[in-house]
Structures are given as structure tokens and as C-alpha cells.
């Protein structure tokens, strides 16, 4: 029986300079779990936001239950029975489960809140609709992440009017055990005839629970899988990737030399038993999805977070960093993933940002020697081609690519032995990307050890000598980039590989 619940036709949406969606179709049938996959920037979140009424489409139509929505607004979509489970939980830590489920839709009589009734209703909902036991009196902060996710789902569905639920990366922060818990709830919802759109990077999950899958690539439909089997992942990956790696990357072979950074069985909350070595002249990549523990690993190496056990050695000497300043003193530099929050002091000038880590070298009797600091900044600005070529410009006003060059320039100026780059080209335009890659390459040539953590498989393969793959807090594979295909790497990071490669 084909019974279409949602039909999005020819959706087009452009932003200044970018065509984000180009006549995309998306159809969801009643009671099915429909997967939506694609690489970063393929248009998944854009089409979800169009459906949510957050973005207004330039063209196309949205039909729900056979009726065309005249005006797609958050209100009209909600009234039509569509609910969204955002990636962020949006819960109040000190609220109880019941209070969280009914937030903004509390039930009350003339005498006040019907606390008991709401609690009973919430607990019954968890039991019957999600197939789990959860006390309405528990505080959110005492729950695990998976249970919080269920609370978030209950909040969206408690009014029993939902026909279609959109999950945006629901498992990103979960461990595999917790994922099973969530999947049980999702299957239970399906039994009740609720349709779902499931957006995820984890292809293993997609093939596990989805009935059909729509693949997007560069803002266009790149295929639809009407039958999904456990071994459909490779076909999906080639639909998602669909391109050869372009000539973005300089090609140089590095002769690996003495080890510089050695990590042995490092453990923390988000990852377990991680060991890795980076040699001089070497560029090592870390691949992994959001939530794989990649981010915490970088933070721990740099002293932003404390490890629970394990050792870190630099040039054979064991180190323990209590703060980034100590890591910097030991010769490490970090280009952080959240450039605007951690990388730059946005309201300081380009010159100040470039000099921030090496102020001592441009000072006399602790007073800033402005001529020297400006000379350094001007030189960096020339070397890295930072635009505008005005070192007094406020960093906030620069484009993403130029901001990243400023962060890079700071560490080039400081002269570190180990460069850690976390998502070095997120939000960076293609031109600047090429330049940044060249600089990374040059660093390695000069004997610097480079560790690159990235969610862009193409970038890692093009840039690195070796890649370590993290999945759910563990390093599951180490691969050389020679003859490594993007689809193989994607398969490894998404857990879609038939066989896990042992380290």
C-alpha cells in the first residue's frame, strides 16, 4: 500500500552566492522510517529547515496528508502534525521528567497544575509509546543522554497529534548501548503508524532502521533507495560522494623520521585507550563523526581537558598539561574547530590576534613595541595573503578563510613543533582552502609534526600520510592514504564497513 504522507516537490532555495537546494524532491509514506543522507553541505539541514518553516523556499511545494500547505510556517507545520527532534536537547537540567515533557504545554485546572495527572500521563507515554520505564519525578540531570533524548521525543509527541517526526542526528552523542535504547523507542513509534525522517551520518544505523533512503548531493537528489538492505551502505556512499578528489592538494611524500608526539592508552570520558604517534615531517589525520571522541581527544592533548589515565610524550619526555599554556610552552599549537569562540579574540585587531601567543618577542621591558608587532603582523598578512591587507581591521569582520589564516599566522609566528588542526577548513572558501593546505604541507616539509582532525574525508585523504579512524570513542582503524578511496574512509567512519580493520 502506498500512502504518501509528506510530499516535498521541486524545493529550491538559494542563499547569496550559493544554490543550497536545486529542485529537491522528498516523499515520505505513512508509517515508514525514511533516511536522509548526504555529506556535509549536501542540503540535508536546509531541506529540514524549509520543512520546519525556518527557511522560506524560493520554489516548490509542500504537501502534508494530500493537502498543500499554502504558507509553510513553524505554526502551520506544527498544526499539520510534524514534529522535530533537534540535535540539541533543549532541556532544563533541574526540571523533572514530567516538567520537561509538559514544558510550554502544562495542564492545569482552576486549582493549579494537575501535577499528578501530568506525571501519570508522561509515565504512561514512556511505557506505551516508547516502550521504556521512566519515573516522572527523576531530574533531567540525573538521566543518561539516551533517556534525555527520549524525554525530548516525549515532549514533541505527548499531545498525540504527531504524524511525522523528524530526527536530526539523534545518535550523535550516544554510545552504542544507548543507541539501541533509542532505536527500540523509534521502532515502537513506527508500530503506532507514525512516519519518521531520520537524518544521520551513521550509515550503519540508516541501513539498520530505515525503510527507504533519500540521498542528497550538492543540493540535488542523488538517488533514492526503495529497498534498504544491510549491504546497501557502499551504494549509498558512492551516491553521496559521487566525485573524484579534485586537485586541491599538493602532493608530497614525507619521509617519516623520529617520533615526536607519542600517546599511549590515553583515556577520558569520551574516548578509551587511544594510542597514536606522530613523527617529524609527518601529517597524521584523525577521522570520525561528531561524537566519535575525536574532539575530546584533541582537547585532552592540548591540556583543555584532563585525561583519566594514559601518557603523553613529546620527544620521548612524558608531559602532563594542566592548561593550554603549558602545552604551548612544550611546543604545541592548536588551530581550534570553533574559530569564532576559541580561535580568535573577535574584537581585537588582526595584528593583536597574530601576536597574541608571542607577545614577549615583540616587547621591550614588557611594553608592546608596536613597530615590531605591526611588522610581524604585516609580514604574516603578506605571507598568508590575509585580506583585507589591513592589520588594524577587527578580526570579527574578516571572512572565515581569512580568520583561519589569522589563527594559523599566530602559530606560524610563535613557531611551534607540533601543529594540531581541528576542522581546519570548516567555513573556509575554496581559494583559502588551497592556500591553507599548502601551508600545512610546508610545515611538514620544515620538520613540524602535524595532526589534522577533520570530518571531511576528502581533506584527510588529500592532506595526510596516515589516517586514524575513531568510532564511538575508540580508534578502530589505521589506514595509509596511498590508494585510499573516499568511500572506503566514509565506510570506516560511519561504521558502514563490512569488516572493521584492526589496528
Amino acid at each position, binding site marked *: 500500500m502506498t500512502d504518501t504522507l509528506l510530499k516535498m516537490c521541486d524545493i529550491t532555495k538559494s542563499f547569496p552566492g550559493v544554490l543550497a537546494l536545486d529542485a529537491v524532491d522528498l516523499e515520505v509514506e505513512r508509517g515508514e522510517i525514511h533516511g536522509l543522507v548526504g555529506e556535509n553541505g549536501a542540503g540535508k539541514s536546509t531541506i529540514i529547515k524549509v520543512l520546519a518553516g525556518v527557511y522560506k523556499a524560493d520554489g516548490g511545494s509542500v504537501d502534508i496528508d494530500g493537502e498543500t500547505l499554502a504558507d509553510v510556517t513553524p505554526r502551520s507545520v506544527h498544526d499539520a502534525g510534524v514534529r522535530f527532534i533537534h540535535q540539541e536537547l533543549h532541556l532544563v537540567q533541574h526540571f523533572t521528567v514530567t516538567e520537561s515533557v509538559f514544558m510550554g504545554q502544562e495542564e492545569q485546572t482552576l486549582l493549579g497544575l494537575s501535577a499528578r495527572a501530568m506525571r501519570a500521563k508522561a509515565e504512561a507515554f514512556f511505557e506505551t509509546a516508547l516502550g521504556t520505564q521512566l519515573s516522572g519525578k527523576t531530574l533531567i540531570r540525573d538521566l543518561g543522554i539516551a533517556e534525555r533524548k527520549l524525554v525530548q521525543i516525549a515532549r514533541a509527541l505527548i499531545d498525540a497529534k504527531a504524524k511525522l517526526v523528524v530526527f536530526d542526528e539523534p545518535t550523535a552523542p550516544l554510545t552504542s548501548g544507548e543507541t539501541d535504547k533509542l532505536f527500540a523507542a523509534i521502532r515502537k513509534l513506527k508500530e503506532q503508524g507514525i512516519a519518521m525522517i531520520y537524518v544521520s551520518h551513521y550509515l550503519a544505523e540508516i541501513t539498520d532502521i530505515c525503510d527507504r533512503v533519500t540521498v542528497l548531493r550538492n543540493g540535488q537528489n542523488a538517488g533514492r533507495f526503495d529497498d534498504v538492505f544491510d549491504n546497501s551502505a557502499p551504494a549509498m556512499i558512492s551516491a553521496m560522494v559521487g566525485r573524484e578528489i579534485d586537485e586541491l592538494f599538493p602532493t608530497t611524500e614525507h619521509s617519516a623520521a623520529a617520533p615526536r608526539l607519542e600517546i599511549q592508552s590515553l583515556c577520558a570520558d569520551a574516548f578509551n585507550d587511544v594510542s597514536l604517534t606522530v613523527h617529524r615531517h609527518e601529517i597524521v589525520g584523525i577521522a570520525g563523526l561528531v561524537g566519535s571522541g575525536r574532539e575530546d581527544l584533541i582537547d585532552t592533548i592540548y591540556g583543555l581537558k584532563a585525561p583519566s589515565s594514559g601518557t603523553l610524550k613529546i620527544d620521548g619526555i612524558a608531559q602532563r598539561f594542566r592548561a593550554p599554556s603549558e602545552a604551548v*610552552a612544550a611546543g604545541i599549537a592548536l588551530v581550534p574547530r570553533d574559530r569564532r*569562540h*576559541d*580561535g580568535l*579574540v*573577535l574584537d581585537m585587531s588582526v595584528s593583536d590576534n597574530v601576536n*597574541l*601567543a608571542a607577545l614577549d618577542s615583540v616587547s621591550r621591558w614588557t*611594553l608592546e613595541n608596536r613597530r615590531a608587532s605591526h611588522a610581524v603582523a604585516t609580514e604574516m598578512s603578506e605571507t598568508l595573503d590575509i585580506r583585507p591587507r589591513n592589520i588594524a581591521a577587527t578580526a570579527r569582520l574578516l571572512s572565515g578563510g581569512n580568520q583561519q589564516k589569522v589563527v594559523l599566522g599566530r602559530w606560524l609566528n610563535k613557531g611551534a613543533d607540533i601543529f594540531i588542526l581541528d576542522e581546519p577548513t570548516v567555513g573556509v572558501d575554496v581559494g583559502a582552502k588551497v592556500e591553507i593546505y599548502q601551508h600545512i604541507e610546508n610545515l611538514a616539509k620544515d620538520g613540524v609534526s602535524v595532526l589534522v582532525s577533520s570530518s571531511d574525508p576528502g581533506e584527510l585523504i588529500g592532506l595526510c600520510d596516515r589516517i586514524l579512524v575513531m568510532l564511538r570513542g575508540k580508534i578502530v582503524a589505521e589506514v595509509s592514504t596511498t590508494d585510499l578511496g573516499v568511500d572506503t574512509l566514509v565506510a570506516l567512519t560511519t561504521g558502514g564497513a563490512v569488516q572493521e580493520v584492526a589496528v
Partner: protein
Amino acid sequence: MTLRSVFARFGLIIIIVMFFSFFSYVSPVFLTFDNQVNIIEASAIVLILALGMTLVVAMGGIDLSIGIAFDFGAAFAVVALKDFGAAWYVACLIGVMGGALVGLLNAILIVGLKISPFMATLGTFFVGSSVERVFTNGGGPISYRRMPQEYRDLAVGDVFGIPTEVIIAAAVCLVYFVVLERSIFGKRIHAIGLQKDAANVAGIPVRRYMFVAFILASATCAIGGLIGSANIRMFTPLAGFSYLLDAIAAVFIGAAIHPKGRPNVIGTLVGVLFLGMIGNGLNLMGLDFNLKAALSGIILVSALALAVAQQRFR
């Protein structure tokens, strides 16, 4: 330039000029040289405390205990002079160290125990005021009529006709300007105040800097306490509290007239002089003491609101 951008850039300056013209108009005395010197002299202590506050606010904190540091500076110095017969410069040193003690407590609470600066310094304020009351048996002043002339001169002396307290305040102001606006220490403090996480990633030892800055700020306020005690030849418990709001207000007014809205030394100087001018002008208008209190309170709220509004318009 639109009206809006003129307001965003010069709103407060225009208000300050308007008040200045107004007082010149209503009071013939206001514009005289002697009266202008009066304003500056009356602003000296506030300026010193406001500078300490500028340092803390530039680093993204707040210090509600500057009054306690002021009092401790005065108390330590007066007791050193009176009970231990210390030389005047030793007493000054001891006073400043007494103030630094207050800063040390703040630093331990904020950096060590990670209490928010507001709560921590509020707690220090309560503990400090109580200690002062106990020490003085309920808040009676400790007076010392026969204090050395050199110490007394901190407040009443002059060099080439310029009052010593003005010279001291100017010197502190200059030092603060160099440290906060020209040195690499100041650059790092500003970076911490703007974006603590980014400063941390850039390798600045954020905790160490915060620790030092809180102590430095309190020590500075103690200098104000020295002058205050020299002026009236006694230590009056809880006298420092009255400077708190003026100091905060001066810092925020100063931030509003900065092109980037940052707390800064020159701005604080302008803010202090503005508040001094308001107090002086209201006095000259011959207003009743109570009415003066009400008016200066209202002007304070309005100036702060304007300062904030001005930054929002950018």
C-alpha cells in the same frame, strides 16, 4: 553620518558637555580655576579606586570589595603608625599590603574555588566589613592626631602648588595607562576579558593572570585608603563603601565612550571627572543635601542607561 551613528559614537560626550555648559551657566563660580582644581582634587581618591575596578572589569570580572581594600589600606597604615611607630613609608607599604590581602582572598575564591566574581567579592565585602567592626569594637574610628607630617602630606601637601593627592592619582593613572593600554600584560588582560576561552587556547595562563589582577586591583585601592586616612588623620571603618558605585559607574561610562566599548583608563578618568563635576555642580547650585543625593542618583542611572544604550546602537 546619521543622527543614530552620532549618538552611538558621541552620545555621552554630548551629555557631558551639556552638563558642563549648564553648570557654567547657572553658577558663576563653576568655571573658575579654583573650582576646577576642587573638582580634580575631590576626584583623586575615586579615580584611584575606579582604576582598580577598570583592571578587574577589563578582565571580565567585577569587584564589590574595593571599599574593603580601601579600608584595610587605611587601617593597616594607621595602626602601623600609631601602635608600632613605623616610618611613614613603611606604613604606606604595610597599608598597600593590607589591601593586597583582600585581593588575595578574592583571588583564592574566584580562581581557586571558581566562585563567580560577584558572589566572591560580595562575600569578601561582608566578611571584611565584619572584621572591621570587630577590630574597632563596633565601628568607632581609630584616630591618630600626631601622625608624621610626611604621611599627612599625602593628602594635604603639595608639590609646586599641585596637591599631593592629585599627583599620586595622576601617577597611578599613568602607571595604569601604561600597564593596561600599552604593555603586553594589559593586552593579555584585555584578551581574557573579551574572550576567555580564546585567550586560553592562545596559551595565555588565564588563571595566573586573573589571580595577579585581583590582587593588583585591591592593592591599588589601598593607596586610596592611605590618602583618605591621611586626610582626616584617622581610620574610619566602612568608609570605602561609599566609593563603590561611583567607581563602577565611572568604569562603565568610560567604556561607553571608548570606540570599541571597552573599559579603559582614559575613559575611566573622564567618567570620574564627570561624576566629580556633577557633585560639584549640584553643590554650587546650593541644593539641599538630600535633594542632591536624589539628583546624583538619578543622573547616575540615566548616565549608565545611556552608556549601555549607546553601545547597543553600534
